[in-house]
């Protein structure tokens, strides 16, 4: 037995289900025919090597990145729907074994098709020195993008209960196509000049695949964490804050990035975490009831730890270095953090209601909380009051006046959460 399959049993199953002999023969025949067609068609072009390379490369992308993302998007959802997931949960496989097995096993057929097209791309490379020079970067970026797409597909699947009605296929295809946006521009400029990142000159050909693979690794880690939760593996409090911190540092690393807007991406991630994973009333009660400090820390809802990191970062960015006044730009991180507290606490409040879809309920109300004041104030030509309802710096207002409404919103939301949480705890006793 192949040592890979021993390590990831999912590979053994995928080899049998994804790649039966008939399908392999059909795929091989089709790929060969397609490759020959490309070769013939490219022969009529002005630059045959370039055209042959592009045809075969983008076929590889379609097979591995898009089809692969579709397969990983369905991988866990399919198991939940077919009721085989519990059987996997009972084996000694860890979350890493399962997630790794799905990541490698689900796109197996796509990888096979992509491998069949590789000779055509290499032939094109051998015909053109210009292509040959670009090949290492292009394939480095190809694999990084594939890793990102497959990991995102796996992440979507880990959070999905059903694959019925083509939802997994649709989300997989969208993820695959979305990832092409990271691949396509970088293909156009493999030889682009180095740029400054974290005060270091980084070659573009190195930075781009590294950044893409970095986000792929985070997506894989998140999928693994979600699988681990199903396996009742202990959660660790630092995981989500580490991601939020990574996002902050990632944004700050760009030479021209403004420190004051470094919180937008982490705040969006925290809000997404709150929406994707609002703590159930039961888990909330268990978190409050835990007496062991480390256990309490590990049970802390992800959105709370995300908010804590954002708030800490906001304080650092706004007050360091300390100056006499808090100019409008430096208020932005604090405003964002306070509105983030308001919104995430409200989402958690909704989780305590009897709504069947508390996240949608929260999303609708939050949407209204931003859109309604914007419409009303714009109509009343009172845009200067917009800061009362949105995380916007107001030039004409003093820092305290600008921050006070955001603080009030945050406090009201937290008080509401404390109230519903207390009521829920007392009802369950």
């Amino acid at each position, binding site marked *: *037995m192949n040592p890979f*399959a*021993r390590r990831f*049993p999912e590979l*053994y*199953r995928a080899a*049998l*289900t994804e790649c039966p002999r008939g399908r392999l023969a059909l795929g091989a025949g089709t790929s060969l025919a397609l490759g020959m067609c490309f070769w013939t068609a490219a022969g009529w072009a002005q630059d045959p090597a370039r055209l042959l390379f592009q045809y075969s490369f983008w076929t590889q992308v379609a097979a591995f990145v898009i089809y692969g993302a579709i397969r990983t998007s369905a991988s866990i959802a399919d*198991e939940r729907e*077919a*009721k*085989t997931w*519990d*059987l*996997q*949960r*009972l*084996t*000694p*496989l860890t979350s890493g074994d399962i997630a790794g097995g799905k990541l490698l096993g689900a796109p197996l057929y796509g990888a096979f098709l992509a491998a069949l097209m590789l000779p055509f791309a290499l032939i094109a490379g051998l015909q053109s020195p210009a292509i040959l020079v670009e090949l290492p970067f292009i394939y480095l970026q190809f694999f990084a993008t594939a890793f990102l797409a497959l990991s995102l597909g796996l992440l979507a699947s880990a959070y999905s209960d059903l694959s019925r009605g083509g939802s997994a296929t649709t989300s997989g295809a969208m993820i695959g196509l979305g990832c092409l946006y990271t691949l396509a521009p970088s293909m156009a400029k493999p030889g682009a000049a180095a740029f400054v990142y974290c005060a270091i000159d980084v070659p573009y050909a190195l930075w781009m695949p590294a950044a893409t693979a970095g986000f792929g690794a985070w997506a894989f880690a998140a999928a693994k964490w979600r699988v681990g939760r199903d*396996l*009742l593996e202990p959660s660790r409090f630092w995981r989500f804050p580490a991601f939020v911190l990574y996002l902050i540092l990632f944004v700050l690393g760009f030479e021209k990035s403004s420190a004051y807007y470094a919180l937008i991406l982490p705040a969006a991630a925290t809000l997404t975490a709150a929406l994707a994973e609002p703590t159930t*009333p*039961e888990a909330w009660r*268990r978190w409050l009831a835990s007496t062991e400090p480390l256990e309490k820390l590990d049970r802390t809802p992800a959105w709370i730890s995300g908010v804590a990191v954002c708030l800490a970062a906001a304080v650092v960015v706004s007050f360091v270095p300390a100056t006499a006044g808090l100019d409008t730009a430096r208020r932005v991180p604090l405003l964002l953090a306070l509105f983030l507290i308001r919104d995430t606490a409200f989402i958690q409040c909704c989780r305590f209601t009897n709504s069947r879809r508390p996240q949608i309920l929260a999303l609708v109300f939050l949407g209204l909380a931003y859109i309604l004041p914007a419409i009303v104030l714009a109509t009343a030509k009172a845009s200067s009051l917009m800061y009362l309802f949105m995380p916007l710096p107001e030039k004409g207002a003093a820092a305290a006046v600008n921050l006070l409404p955001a603080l009030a919103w945050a406090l009201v939301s937290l008080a509401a959460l404390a109230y519903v949480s207390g009521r*829920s705890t007392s*009802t*369950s006793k």
Partner: protein
Amino acid sequence: MPDIIFTKALRREYASTPAVEGMDLAIGEGSVAALVGPNGAGKTTFLKMIAALLEPTSGFARVAGHDVRESPRGVHAAVGYLPDFFGLYEELTARQCLRYFHLAYRLPEPADRRIEEVLELVNLRDAADKPIESLSRGMRQRLGLARTLLHDPKLLLLDEPASGLDPGARRELQELLRRLASTGKTIVVSSHILTELEDYCSHVVMLDRGRLVFSGTVAEARARAGGGRRLRIRVLGPVEAARAALAGDPAVSEAAPAPDGWAFRFSGDDESAARLLRSLIEKGVKISSFADDSGSISDGYMKMMPREGA
């Protein structure tokens, strides 16, 4: 007999509604326990908590020496759990499916011998190379059971294994469970078909609305049903002669007419019952049948379960 399952104040709730609560239960190693109760009694929730697939809301549960909360993976290694509704990898053959789980359970190679053993045990050798999608429901159930047996667990948790099976398949499953029980495995089996459990179960656990109603041996359950041991005789000829013969035995009371004979409460042991039979024959009563008439598990169940609205 050490306890393989021990729970204390075990509770699980869904959206503040308790599915299982205040469950204090001990099941000894080697016992075959029938888990019975109406729909919604909490049987599946209880089994899932014991299988460490569902975290208890509160309380404590130890299974095969592992705390379900602290060491769920330890529990998984010791337990073979067959859910009430489970899927199988339809595109694989039964043998490939078992090979996959052999790898997943990290069992030592070579796998073939162990796979043959379990296929033999569940009587599925002939269908081993057929695609799972072509197997009958009974065969699928046996394949599911083969999967639970693959890593040779100490404890088997079977949730409604006979549900949806035809009488023939049910009989085969019953035979299989009897064979497994004889190998010394602890088995907890939930079912609605109580009469089928009587033959091979040593213990009964009754649940109702998430609470434990009764836990004890089958004999204790029967005794509760009948309010003590009851015997029943059938005689040839006049039944009054038998009545007079019975009246002489101090262990006999509450004799009541039954078709072609009498049913009565009997306070003696098996030795006294044998003596009673001998004395009846010596007194010239023509006995055609002498049998235990104590209540069944079903009777115990009906007697102990709170009535709707009570």
